[in-house]
């Protein structure tokens, strides 16, 4: 009986593969993310481009000691005033014109948060706490040497880093955590979710070519594009982006991981999956669409995990020497904190869950913050967290660390 099962498995696999191949062969995927209808582009993700640019201005403003106020940072995060009125906090006028904001899409995916609004609110507010603390705790200590319990500046090579009393850079916490809480969450757990792609009459409309009101796309096409936009929406040429270009958000780190030979090709594979998935939607091949979504979920989750381990290990190496390089370590570990935080929003393919439980991640974050924080974190703790992360993925700590 068992033997039969084992023998059957490869046969089944073969059968599936041949099915896939036939179906895939029918779909003509272009080499770039360009799709048209009636001679005009049917691709649209302006809201995603806008939010990436807002996040970029927000993290820059966090380091503008001379001009930034707490009020300004919160307005940039919400794109409205504390009273809910219209705000113009951005340098880029287009962003002020936009009705979008960052906060509304933080921890806001259908799959993870539609019935989990309490947690969603906690996460949204955690970002506000970091923004406020930057102005309240770090700004007044701009010209103070950082020490355990004392916010201030610390040397990292020839540059100065500005940290809180536990050694964390709030700008890194915000920037790197947004990669998960905003971008990956919206992409993996919202727009690539069947609950969103197939919502309402989306399938029927898509199969019949019924367009969204006043638009040149079907709703399903647009949802897929919006997932794409969180990765490549701020590239110079979003239809044919360079893997790795960008200003410190998801595509930047897709590029970093792709440049590690242990993960070479992950960038192109992700790009290709987006293209094939979009082409599959046009062809009404929803199984192929969903297979591509799983590839993207796995790859984007892997990118976040690899960077978390990479920075944990860099930080450990900086601390674990005769003369610990605290400045370099704090910078690395602040980034690690953000990527670890972002792992809460990862997605195991063909499942409803992140690679590590949110509670488990919170416990690891608490280990980094315990006591004097990064001033007295043990290298062995950093190794343990690294191993815990890697164990959930198909890579080793050493593959991620180089």
């Amino acid at each position: 009986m068992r033997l039969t099962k084992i023998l059957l498995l490869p046969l089944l696999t073969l059968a599936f593969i041949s099915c896939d191949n036939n179906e895939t062969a029918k779909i003509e995927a272009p080499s770039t993310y360009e799709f048209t209808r009636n001679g005009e582009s049917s691709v649209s993700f302006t809201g995603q481009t806008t939010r990436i640019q807002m996040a970029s201005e927000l993290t820059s403003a966090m380091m503008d000691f001379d001009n930034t106020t707490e009020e300004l940072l919160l307005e940039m995060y919400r794109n409205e005033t504390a009273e809910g009125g219209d705000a113009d906090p951005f340098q880029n006028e287009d962003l002020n014109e936009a009705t979008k904001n960052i906060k509304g899409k933080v921890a806001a995916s259908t799959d993870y948060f539609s019935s989990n609004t309490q947690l969603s609110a906690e996460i949204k507010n955690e970002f506000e706490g970091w923004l406020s603390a930057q102005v309240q705790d770090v700004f007044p200590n701009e010209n103070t040497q950082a020490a355990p319990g004392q916010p201030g500046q610390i040397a990292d090579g020839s540059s100065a880093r500005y940290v809180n009393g536990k050694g964390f850079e709030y700008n890194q916490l915000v920037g790197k955590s947004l990669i998960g809480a905003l971008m990956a969450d919206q992409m993996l757990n919202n727009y690539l979710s069947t609950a969103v792609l197939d919502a309402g009459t989306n399938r029927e409309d898509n199969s019949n070519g019924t367009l969204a009101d006043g638009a040149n796309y079907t709703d399903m096409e647009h949802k897929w594009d919006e997932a794409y936009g969180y990765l490549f929406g701020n590239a110079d040429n979003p239809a044919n982006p360079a893997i790795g270009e960008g200003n410190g958000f998801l595509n930047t780190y897709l590029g970093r991981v792709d440049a590690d030979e242990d993960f070479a090709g992950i960038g192109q594979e992700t790009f290709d999956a987006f293209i094939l998935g979009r082409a599959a939607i046009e062809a009404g091949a929803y199984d192929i669409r969903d297979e591509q979504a799983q590839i993207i979920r796995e790859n984007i989750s892997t990118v976040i995990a690899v960077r978390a381990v990479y920075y944990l290990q860099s930080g450990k190496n900086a601390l674990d020497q005769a003369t610990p390089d605290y400045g370099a370590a704090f910078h690395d570990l602040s980034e690690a904190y953000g990527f670890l935080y972002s792992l809460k929003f990862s997605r195991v393919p063909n499942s409803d869950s992140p690679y590590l439980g949110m509670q488990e991640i919170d416990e690891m974050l608490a280990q980094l913050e315990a006591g004097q924080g990064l001033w007295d974190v043990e290298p062995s703790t950093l190794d343990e967290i690294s191993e815990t992360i890697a164990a959930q993925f198909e890579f080793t700590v050493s593959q991620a660390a180089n």
Partner: protein
Amino acid sequence: MKKLTALLFTVLIVWGCTGNGPSGPDPDDFDREAILVNWADNIIVPAFTHFSETTDQLHTSAQEFASNPTEQNLVKLRTSWENAYLAFQHVSMFEMGEAMQLRFRDNLNIYPSDTSNINENITEGGYNLELPSQNSSQGFPALDYLLNGLGENDAEILASYTTDSNAENYRVYLTDLTERADNLANQVLENWTNGYRDEFVSNSGNGANSSLDMMVNDYIYYYEKHLRAGKVGIPAGVFSGSPLSSHVEAYYSEGLSKALFNEALTASINFFNGTHFDAEVNGQSLDDYLDYLNTMKDGADLTMLINDQFQTAQSRAENLDPDFAAQVETDNSLMLSTYDELQRNVVNMKVDMLQALSINVDYVDADGD
């Protein structure tokens, strides 16, 4: 997996080349302490001694100028600054022990200097030069700005120290900078002469934390980042695409950049060969260690390859304008070809030499974010 396969192949090939496995001279048998003694007693301590003499003179000249800001005293002060800057090229690579703790090099030679912050310090006062954010507002590059960059000619420069409404602040800032440079020099020297020398010499084993491994790493790091990239590559636009004349060392001076580069290259060559500071005597150093191990590369003697390559770089640089800023603006290709010659020795030392000496590189290129 690919890595592992490649490694196995490499091992097999290396094994094949040496014929009978690891039977030649063993790095462990070499007297490393003899090198450490030569470095400490005949190069490092004399170089720091000389450097601290020049910073002492620099501070004295600055005080004289501050109390009597004449053109004659300005010229004298510039000479003292040049001497100290040249002497600095012989100690900059030794960023270990107290120097590492103090972040000696970052406090003395970050360029380009941050002139807007320097001006702010002068007008507002209340600066703390020990803060990392003040690195680029002090040291030799900041002094370069104060002595050469405040005006088109000496009369204009002098006006900042005499008739300007902030003249008093200019004089105070100047002597604060020279005092700090002198203090840093003395602190590092005292550390070497009060115990660190013995610690350095006795830590003569091998392994990542041994003196030799750390010193060789510091040396190659210095050569790669501060000499090759800082003095030549960055101004030539190797990393940015187009030349950056404002990133030349001693930018405001008239043609000191080439002299500083030559001095630094000489110091690097001397260190490799164990040449005593200010004496044409060769002691034990990396060249002897490589010779002991009969290190060959592509059928040639590695010591000879490295020294020949140093000579090539030196002679290529001979034709450069004394002012590197002028060089990159008029004929950058010559600057680039100097860079290429310097780069060849990065490979010889960082790859071939470290492999022969069984030393691991302990630094990686920064992530850049």
